[in-house]
């Protein structure tokens, strides 16, 4: 089939949510047209074993390649020529776009922490935010299926609000490295857990994908298929069914409704020709990313209504959330001069610090309502342009300082929950269009006191841990309002088309089906009802799998 033919489903986006929908639907026998705004891409392009020395400027980030020369992101980033977005006065928001087949899954950190029972019912628990229409118990089997399919390493620790996976689901985690063992010793002494991380990186072979070979940064894309991305898994699998048609360079502008108010397809700009085209399907699935999905809904005009499509609740664009980010780092004299060995490992977390202080939140001893986890980085990594940071002098003493301090610095990065607030949302800027003539998004964003207090909790806790291990801070952390990340900076934005139990205050039902249009579904991060501290991708995929199962059933029974 070609993109001009009507398909059973039109899926907008090829990242975590779109590719999962395409795989589930094609597997169930439906024909799927996948529209991707960026170019075709495969990590076979990735120069897996190239190093900094082989790259311009030793591979550092530049305004055109913000995450460094080798980052898999092509034709994307914070700033895209001809594709602006605007911000309300006093607001700052960083909107990452990934215009390529596979979207952000090509470069994500692969951290895969499933949400827990508290995370799905935050409002019930502390009166803040909004409850999901699903419970953890509803989601647990879908997490198991997703983790098994994707391949996630980790361990079942039985920790509060950090659920175990089902038997046989997880792959074995890689061994801790010396500095992780060191941190664990300190954490154990003050009851801060340091446990095996969970990442979508294979440690055992699955299907045609190889296990990790313990080298090559995952962010550059993984041509051996060990680090999960949709371009080495869901998309090729969906292609194999013979049911998937992909159109790249297809920038979707709006959803088209028929006379009965059902979605009949979408209008997209074919970048190669600049022409508008229409894609037709029995069901439309939006998975264009939290920002783009809201933008498409806003730009889909409905006769007699001003608020855009699927927005009778007024919640489209609202409840914009990102992960709370901040960091501290420290030198540990006890790690100086330790014996060298290869610490590349899985090129990411082997260990991390899950949130541990729920009981003191419940008792009121802790003044921030929601938690965070800590991602830790140290190791004898490949030296980069920052290797001389903080050093002094010159000559032989400088050389010995570099060598002594190598591998003795550990960075602690907070990844925390944000509670939705009325000041954080996106809308359409009617005065600005992108190079395709599509009106752009305008962002409003503000953290609340809840998040700032959480940063303080993180800073104090890490200082305690660092102190226990005899470390010294590289620099005293800034006050929370200054230390906290900018909105969007952690690239975990979610919430602009939240799911809920009630059509009056949510955009979709528990299966991502919009309340207003029976055959319009959303399977990306925009449907999140809350932003737990857990990184969103694994939950996007689990939800997309569950929602797609619902779509497949309805297609089969002729409901759609």
């Amino acid at each position: 089939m070609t993109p001009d033919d009507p398909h059973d489903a039109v899926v907008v986006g090829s990242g975590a949510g779109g590719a999962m929908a395409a795989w589930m639907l094609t597997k169930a026998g439906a024909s799927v047209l996948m529209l991707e705004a960026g170019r075709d891409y495969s990590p076979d392009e990735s120069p897996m074993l190239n190093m900094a020395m082989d790259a311009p400027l030793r591979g550092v980030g530049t305004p055109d390649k913000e995450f460094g020369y080798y980052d898999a992101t092509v034709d994307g980033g914070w700033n895209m020529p001809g594709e602006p977005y605007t911000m309300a006065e006093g607001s700052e928001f960083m909107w990452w776009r990934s215009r390529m087949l596979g979207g952000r899954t090509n470069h994500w950190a692969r951290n895969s922490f499933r949400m827990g029972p508290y995370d799905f019912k935050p409002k019930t628990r502390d009166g803040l935010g909004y409850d999901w229409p699903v419970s953890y118990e509803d989601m647990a089997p879908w997490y198991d299926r997703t983790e098994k399919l994707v391949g996630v390493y980790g361990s079942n620790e039985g920790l509060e609000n950090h659920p175990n996976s089902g038997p046989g689901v997880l792959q074995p985690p890689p061994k801790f490295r010396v500095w992780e063992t060191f941190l664990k010793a300190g954490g154990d002494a003050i009851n801060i857990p340091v446990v095996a991380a969970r990442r979508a990186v294979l440690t055992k072979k699955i299907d045609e994908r190889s296990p990790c070979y313990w080298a090559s940064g995952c962010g550059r894309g993984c041509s051996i298929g060990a680090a999960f991305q949709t371009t080495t898994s869901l998309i090729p699998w969906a292609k194999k069914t013979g049911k998937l048609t992909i159109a790249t360079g297809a920038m979707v502008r709006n959803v088209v409704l028929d006379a009965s108010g059902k979605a009949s397809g979408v209008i997209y700009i074919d970048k190669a020709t600049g022409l508008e085209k229409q894609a037709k399907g029995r069901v439309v699935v939006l998975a264009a990313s939290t920002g783009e999905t809201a933008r498409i809904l806003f730009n889909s005009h409905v006769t007699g209504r001003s608020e855009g499509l699927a927005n009778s609740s007024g919640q489209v664009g609202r409840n914009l959330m990102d992960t709370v980010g901040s960091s501290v780092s420290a030198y540990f004299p006890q790690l100086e001069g330790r014996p060298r060995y290869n610490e590349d490992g899985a090129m990411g977390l082997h260990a991390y610090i899950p949130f541990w202080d729920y009981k003191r939140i419940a008792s009121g001893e802790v003044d921030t309502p929601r938690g965070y986890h800590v991602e830790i980085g140290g190791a004898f990594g490949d030296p980069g342009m920052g290797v001389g940071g903080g050093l002094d002098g010159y000559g032989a003493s400088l050389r010995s300082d570099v060598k002594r301090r190598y591998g003795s610095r550990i960075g602690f990065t907070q990844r925390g929950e944000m509670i939705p607030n009325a000041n954080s949302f996106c809308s359409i800027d009617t005065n600005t269009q992108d190079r395709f003539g599509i009106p752009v998004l305008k962002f409003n964003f503000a953290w609340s006191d809840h998040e700032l207090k959480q940063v303080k909790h993180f800073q104090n806790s890490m200082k305690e841990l660092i102190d226990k291990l005899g470390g010294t801070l590289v620099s005293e952390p800034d006050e929370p309002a200054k230390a906290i990340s900018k909105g969007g900076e952690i690239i975990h934005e979610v919430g602009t088309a939240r799911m809920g139990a009630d059509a009056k205050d949510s955009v979709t039902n528990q299966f991502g089906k919009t309340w207003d249009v029976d055959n319009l579904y959303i399977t990306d991060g925009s449907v999140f009802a809350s932003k737990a501290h857990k990184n969103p991708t694994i939950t996007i995929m689990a939800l997309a799998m569950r929602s797609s199962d619902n779509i497949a059933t309805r297609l089969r029974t002729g409901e759609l």
Partner: protein
Amino acid sequence: MTKDLITIDRRVTLKWLMGTLAVGQLAACGDGAKGISWPEMKAIEAAGIGKDPDFSNITVPWPLTMTAAELEITAELVDLILPGEGDIPSPSAVGVPAFINEWVSAPYPDQHKDRVLIINGLKWLDDESKIRNGVPFIRAEAAAQTAILDDIAFKDKVKEGLDKPAEFFGRMRSLTLGAFYTTREGWADIGYMGNTPGTGDYAGPTPEAAAHIKGVIEAMGLKYTPA
């Protein structure tokens, strides 16, 4: 090629003339060259890496801008920052000056800031040497060179009025270390042993590394958990 050489010659000559003038003026104040100005420079307009570089044909797309004379002082300076030692080569022997040329010639804001700092800083170094020693930096005796560095290389001991040269030196130190330790020779020196694909499970710490951290942890009165 001929044209390029002429261009460089002219630039070197002009620079030399300008340098002489500046030194003359400042020497009259009898206070070294510390008051020398660090003029802003025009931003480089050239093609950058772009958003979709071809990894099968990696190139540095922008023209290099440092003069032969600037590269010569750079080589002298980077080798003073991190002198070769035994089998470990000096930075100039593994291409660090050429990398600094690539860096300061890049058409990006961060690199532009470094360019202003470094090109002016190299000039300051030469002028300072001429004032103190009567010869350019590269011709000065080793002790005379380090006497200048000692005034700008240590955070808490920067000579009064030399904050800007100290900032220049700090940046050169950082770029030199970054450039050197990202080479194979630098890896050998620092002890980076990665980027070596393996099969099977991740090996984890060597017995020696594990025994060492066990000792460290237990000496702190903490509990060691084997990896």
